[in-house]
């Protein structure tokens, strides 16, 4: 359905580079999975660890070698043969070994010396780097029903900030999500959090308590993904509109190749034809456009998070600097005021507490003349 150029090549589902180190050619995710499963033995991708002794016996039988040869082989190939230090002394893996001949280590030493000379030792990315991983790595579900099946595909999806500038490739991904092949695009949409979904439109200086009830996500539910010439639109709710139609019609009238449509909620990743590494589009709230890149497609591994309930799984979140309240400089700004006689600037940001203390009396009545708009910071999800 989504193939603009249906290829006659039988191996079209084996991904190759389209542009080296940039993106792959187009392939069908479900067929890609089957290609792998056809090549592998179930034991290759099973979560169970095969018994070592059985392995040895099979190996000896297959290669036609004696038990003695096998034990020689095992001792030669044992991990101990790679040890670079004496058996009784454990090296300190925290420090860069001095006097190493390896260039990587020479460089690492230099870099570490440089970093030590800096005043700031850790930045916010380092501080929270392990936080997400600690929650999920190697998690097994409590019930077998929630187990991600063996041989399922896992996609790594980068979602970038809504961008209006061209050079997105220098931007950090906003979030990185892991999803399985059985997930639908609608589930991906729900997993993407963007502050523009939380914006509240309107002026609430008279009724500040009412504000949180009108967030954009509930008002404007339409959204679409654009993958390989197909718009996948969200039609789950009656309020949803087909916001891709304008683009399709415009493209038609300007002599572009025809684009088709499909429903987001009916499309599973396994049925999708995509290029790995290629930038696609997610558009919501009318014009909030995010780049979406599928950076990786692979089979599940025993070390992955195997609890279905934890997917879509967040593996990376960019921590943006937040804009603080102009009064206390502690809390994140939640109100933006204009024409405000109390404010130092116009517009001015306030946290909820400072805003109310400054602009309302004890009974909650508005003091003075100003306009107040709810403000959602970009770092609201940090």
């Amino acid at each position, binding site marked *: 359905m989504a193939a603009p150029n249906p290829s006659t090549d039988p191996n079209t589902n*084996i*991904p*190759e*580079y389209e*542009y*080296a*180190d*940039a*993106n*792959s050619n187009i*392939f069908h995710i479900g067929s890609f999975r089957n*290609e*792998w499963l056809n090549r*592998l033995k179930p034991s*290759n*991708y099973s979560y169970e*660890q095969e018994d*070592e002794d059985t*392995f040895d016996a099979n190996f000896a039988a297959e290669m036609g070698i004696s038990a003695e*040869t096998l034990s020689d082989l095992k001792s*030669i*190939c044992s*991990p101990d*043969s*790679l040890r*670079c*230090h004496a058996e009784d002394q454990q*090296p*300190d*893996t*925290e*420090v*860069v*070994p001095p006097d190493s*001949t*390896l*260039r*990587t*280590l*020479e*460089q*690492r*030493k230099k870099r570490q010396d440089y970093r030590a000379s800096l005043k700031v030792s850790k930045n916010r990315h380092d501080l929270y*780097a*392990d936080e997400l*991983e600690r929650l999920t790595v*190697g998690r097994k579900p409590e019930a077998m029903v929630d187990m991600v099946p063996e041989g399922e595909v896992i996609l790594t999806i*980068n979602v970038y900030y809504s961008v209006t500038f061209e050079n997105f*490739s220098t931007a950090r991904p906003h979030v990185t999500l892991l999803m399985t092949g059985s997930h639908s695009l609608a589930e991906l949409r729900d997993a993407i959090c963007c502050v523009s979904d939380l914006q509240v439109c309107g002026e609430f200086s008279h009724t500040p308590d009412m504000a949180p009830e009108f967030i954009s996500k509930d008002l404007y539910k339409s959204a679409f993904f654009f993958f390989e010439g197909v718009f996948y639109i969200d039609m789950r709710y009656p309020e949803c509109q087909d916001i891709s139609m304008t683009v399709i019609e415009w493209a038609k009238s300007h002599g572009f190749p025809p684009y088709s449509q499909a429903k987001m909620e009916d499309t599973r990743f396994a049925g999708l034809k995509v290029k*790995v*590494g290629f930038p696609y589009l997610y558009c919501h709230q009318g014009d909030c456009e995010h780049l979406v*890149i599928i*950076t*990786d*497609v*692979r*089979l599940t*591994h*025993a*070390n992955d998070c195997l609890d279905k309930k934890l997917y879509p799984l967040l593996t990376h979140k960019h921590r943006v600097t937040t804009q603080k309240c102009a009064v206390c400089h502690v809390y994140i700004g939640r109100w933006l005021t204009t024409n405000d006689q109390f404010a130092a600037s116009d517009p001015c940001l306030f946290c909820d507490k400072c805003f109310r203390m400054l602009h309302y009396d004890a009974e909650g009545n508005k003091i003075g003349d100003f306009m107040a708009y709810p403000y959602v910071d970009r770092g609201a999800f940090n």
Partner: protein
Amino acid sequence: MDFCKKHVKSDCVELLSRFQGSESVRFQVFSKIWREMEFSQIFYGTVNHREQREFCRLILDTAYTFFLPPYSFQIRVGGLYLLHSLYQCQITSPREQIRLALKDWEDVMKLEKDAVNAQHHDAVYILRQLMLHKAFSFTAMPTMLSFKKKRNVKSLELCEEFMERPSRPQELINIELLEELSNIDELYGKLKTSVSSESEPAYSSINLIRKDLVPQLRSTVVDFYKWQQRKSGPDEDGNGDSGEGMSSQQECSRRAQLLASIKSKAYGEATEASKSRRHRQVEVDFTSNVAGPSHSLRYSRTNKLSLKARTCENVHISGDLWKEAGETTRIKCLTTVDFASKVHSGKQNPVKRFKW
């Protein structure tokens, strides 16, 4: 992590070039070099867990490239050992996996088959052990891709010294050389006859060179190739060369192609003479008495190469030849150095030399 890419690669290359120097595919030899270089230490001293993980990813991806063609069998086995050792020695937990791309699966299976046939038990054992311990992650592409376009693609650089050498005799005595030889022979014969009296063309004192030089040279190369094929058969054991000949399908087919072209061209009719010599050929045409290319159908060929390709080829040939014959065309030779390897060894892609 990009900052240390170059250094990681150079460390891997250093390890593998020592391994190459040992002329062995034994894991014992590899682990000895590993210990000598204290390669396990490469994981030590990263700032935090995330950096450790990223570094693991980088070095495994780097090592992975050596595990695949176009590198020689020995380097690929070295690459396998390197992957195994890195996987075993990494200090991240859980371990970072080796990414195996679907398109590379056939190559891995081929390598395994070659190793089994050549009875390299250690290589097979280590590959199977990696499989057993689920060290591989079965992926779509060898690395994560995020459309990072670079102006100068560095990672494409291959280490030339690790690639299997196309056999020197075939490389040296190729079709162009044979053609040139026969042309010179003709010219020389013509010159000699013009010097001596016209009445006795077969005068013995000027017939010093064997007339069948070119075909004989050709058949010697063919014989050598056949011998080489026999020698690198699967039944041979031990010394590290076995399996190499058959390890790379491309190599075999390249040699076969080369030979086929030698055969067909040496006796073939439609030989295009090099541009630099056409002016001479007009005069030697009718006295041609050597079993070389005949020029009667010279203009019958329709699918000519582009002008640029032909120029490169021809200019190079004359340069190569005249380097030995005389001083006159030296400058031409210098200007075509870049094309030399490309034209001669018939490689599809121009290979940049690895820079330290």
